[in-house]
């Protein structure tokens, strides 16, 4: 086995692909559902697209599977270990798009979905930022919690929407015949910044901090 094979083995590449595939199939079937969140009868519900939630779960699971399991050795490594951590982060940000794309491929033509790509990139980058700092499981949970908090905030205080980091789903809108719908505002800039930050943090820490490893020792 060459060194690339060992890297793929250490980062559990088959399991990563399997998880992505299974979640893509789930998203293909159920991704068009949306979970309404509202707490007052009169307020407008915030709707969580299941495709987005599945992509976030995919990002968390990939973060967990690709965690550095030989960190006590890898922490001593040089440029090649850093490169591997950076590539792992990129994979962890890009692969969660697979369930999303599987889901949007079932949408009628003309429906705008590019904003969903930006949302998923932001969420996956956030997972990759927090995973080295807190550990993949707790870090993923924190991102999930923030995502839920965002939904609660959006339904409770709708006026805040322009200032929130994600684009909210506003219902499936079909374009009138012969016309095109405007693209909803997507936070591409934030996605790029968080992506770069995630790669930088993973490169700097080689995938995990001492603090995160200790947290994992206690609770993993």
């Amino acid at each position: 086995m060459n060194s690339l094979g060992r890297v793929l083995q250490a980062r559990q590449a088959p399991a990563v692909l399997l998880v992505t595939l299974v979640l893509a199939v789930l998203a293909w079937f159920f991704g068009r559902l949306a979970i309404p969140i509202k707490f007052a009868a009169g307020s407008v519900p915030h709707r969580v697209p299941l495709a987005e939630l599945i992509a976030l779960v995919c990002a968390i699971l990939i973060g967990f599977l690709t965690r550095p399991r030989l960190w006590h050795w890898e922490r001593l490594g040089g440029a090649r270990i850093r490169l591997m951590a950076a590539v792992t982060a990129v994979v962890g940000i890009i692969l969660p798009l697979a369930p999303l794309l599987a889901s949007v491929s079932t949408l009628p033509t003309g429906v705008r979905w590019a904003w969903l790509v930006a949302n998923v990139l932001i969420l996956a980058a956030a997972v990759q930022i927090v995973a080295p700092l807190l550990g993949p499981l707790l870090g993923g949970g924190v991102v999930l919690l923030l995502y839920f908090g965002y939904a609660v905030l959006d339904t409770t205080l709708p006026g805040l929407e322009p200032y929130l980091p994600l684009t909210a789903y506003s219902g499936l809108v079909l374009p009138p015949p012969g016309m095109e719908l405007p693209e909803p505002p997507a936070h591409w800039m934030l996605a790029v910044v968080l992506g770069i930050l995630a790669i930088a943090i993973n490169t700097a820490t080689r995938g995990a901090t001492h603090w995160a490893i200790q947290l994992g020792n206690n609770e993993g």
Partner: protein
Amino acid sequence: MSMLRRFAGWPLGVGVLLGPAVLVVAATMFTSYEQWGYPYQDWVYTSLQFHEQLLLAGPIAAAAATYYGGRLVRAGRLFAQPCAVRAGGPVVVRHLVTLCGTFLVAYLIGLAPLVVLTIMYAQAGGPVFAGVVTGLLGMIMLTTLGYGIGAITGSAWLTPLTLVLAFVGVQSTAYAYDKFAAVDPVTNFAFTLGRVPAWPITGYRIAFFVFVTIAIAVVAARAARHQRRLHLPSAVSMGLFVLLVTAVVVPAITQPAIATEEIDPPQVCTDREGIEYCVHSGHRDELDTMVDTAATLFRFAGGPPDGVTKVRDTSLNASRDDASASDTIWVHLAPLNPTRKVTSQYVVLTLSGIQACWDKYPGAQITPEPMRIQHDLAAALSIKEGSAAWGAEFETDFTSLSIEELADWFSQHRTVIENCELTEQDLP
């Protein structure tokens, strides 16, 4: 030290219980405070809130229990050494009593304002057993579920995951429609006076919640007693899991009814100007408002529509199976609907002929001309009455008419309105 040991919170302290308990109180009040302001309360609706309000409080309790279980149960903890005698069942029971007790009390404190308001402002009746019991059992089940996740995986870091997944789970009735109403504490199906929870589904819910609670406690007790050498679930755990899946899938296929109608609901009636007005006795204080509003509108229209002899509260016949009976106007009285506005809405619906148009053009996509005129008429009537239930503040051909002129115009055009044949020439 023995005092400390006797306290079930040892060795985590009280913070891990009291913190989430405060959150449960806050969450329950946050999701129910809108209902504190209803003009009156209704025991059926309030009793349902015992399970509906679990939407946020339930996942919080489950997440807190995950932390508690994840911290305390795993073999390998300093206070739970693999070589020590593992207590299993008694420990799990003690943990669950502590957790469920704390969160149930917190939940009841959160619901207390709504219950007190209902005791003060409900006009008849009492708590509905099915709603209250399934709500409290649902809280116990969600807490146990969260505890089980922590105890079985041995990880307190699953706490945020439990919170979000429990929310996605309890909210399933909102996006998977009625499929999971038999197994989900939160039904997302609010009904009011005049209907009662159906017994088959209530019995199933109670049995299911108790079963899940016991099953998870058993699996957690086994996890606490044994060191896991193999990472395979035991036959007992697998068997319970299969039973659980069956218990979720069967009602999702059969989809039993959630509510049935109250049989022979008690009613309060009165007569005015030849019209009989009836409400459910739980709405008896609303009767005067309803009669005044309807009578005013009938006066504006120069008398009630031909053939109408009754105005009735829909709580007296929730499914309105005789809605086609043309002698009755049904008014949907409920705590959420201010009585004057909703009476105006329903009476005007018939008076202005909109109901007739709906019957004549069922499912019409393009508003036919009479319907547009009748919407103007409806708005004018409800504005003159004062409730503006059909939209306010826009000028129509009827706004400038005095009440007498309007009544005259009405008596001249009665048949045209009732046949949905109004045209521009009929305008005053």
